């Protein structure tokens, strides 16, 4: 894949990161598998490499100014995710690529359902408040 295409792909992913408040790996992984023909494990490892860097920093500053950040909960989540990430990584490395990709597909479907439903009551309150 041409390097400019990869940079452009990153840009599109970044916009989604800011809008949805998500990390972007969920888009990067399938894009690398299907556009770049990468193996599922390598795509996931590359995605993890990307999110090692504070990519969400620009987006966080926007939320911070609007007082939309819970510092304490954020710090707790960092610790939990560090430990959990190690455990999950150990499991994934031991799986066959095809199985891992199918499991990733199931995970995306679950994430999609969660995204759909969380759009409901709380955000309406917020919209009403303006």
């Amino acid at each position, binding site marked *: 894949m041409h390097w400019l295409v990869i940079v452009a792909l990153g840009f599109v992913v970044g916009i989604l990161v800011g809008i949805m408040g998500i990390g972007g790996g969920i888009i990067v992984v399938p894009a690398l598998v299907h556009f770049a023909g990468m193996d599922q494990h390598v795509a996931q490892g590359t995605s993890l490499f990307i999110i090692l860097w504070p990519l969400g920093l620009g987006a966080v500053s926007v*939320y911070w100014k609007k007082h939309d*950040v819970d510092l304490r909960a954020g710090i707790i989540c960092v610790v939990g995710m560090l430990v959990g990430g190690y455990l999950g990584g150990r499991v994934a490395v031991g799986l066959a690529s095809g199985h891992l990709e199918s499991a990733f597909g199931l995970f995306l479907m679950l994430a999609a359902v969660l995204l759909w439903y969380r759009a409901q009551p709380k955000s309406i309150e917020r919209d009403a408040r303006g």
Partner: protein
Amino acid sequence: MADLSKNPIAIFGTSLVVGVASGMFGIGGGVLLVPLLVLIHHFEQHRAQGTSLLALVPPTGLFAFLTYYAAREVDIRTGLLLIPGIFFGGIIGGRVAVKLSARRMRRVFASILFLLGTWEFIAPMLRH
């Protein structure tokens, strides 16, 4: 019954589950952390998104990354090329999100994600 919604231990438990998913699927975890903060811990939507982005600023996936790196499952060059776009795109997306109610946009995104998930689920079976 005690309200566990903002209990630090309950939040820790949630983030541990998110971390396992993050390591297993090579993702940041925000896609799971945001809805769980809203649904279980009753965070307001924008606050959940801001908090999730904050949790992803430190290298939260460091240990997950190291397991893949040790197994030689990382493409550093492609990774480096993706970084600048994600950073600058993130600033633009963040500005868009705090201005508009992203509800409809999120539903479009959820639909795309679901189709993508179905494809990923089936694709390995079609290759055999």
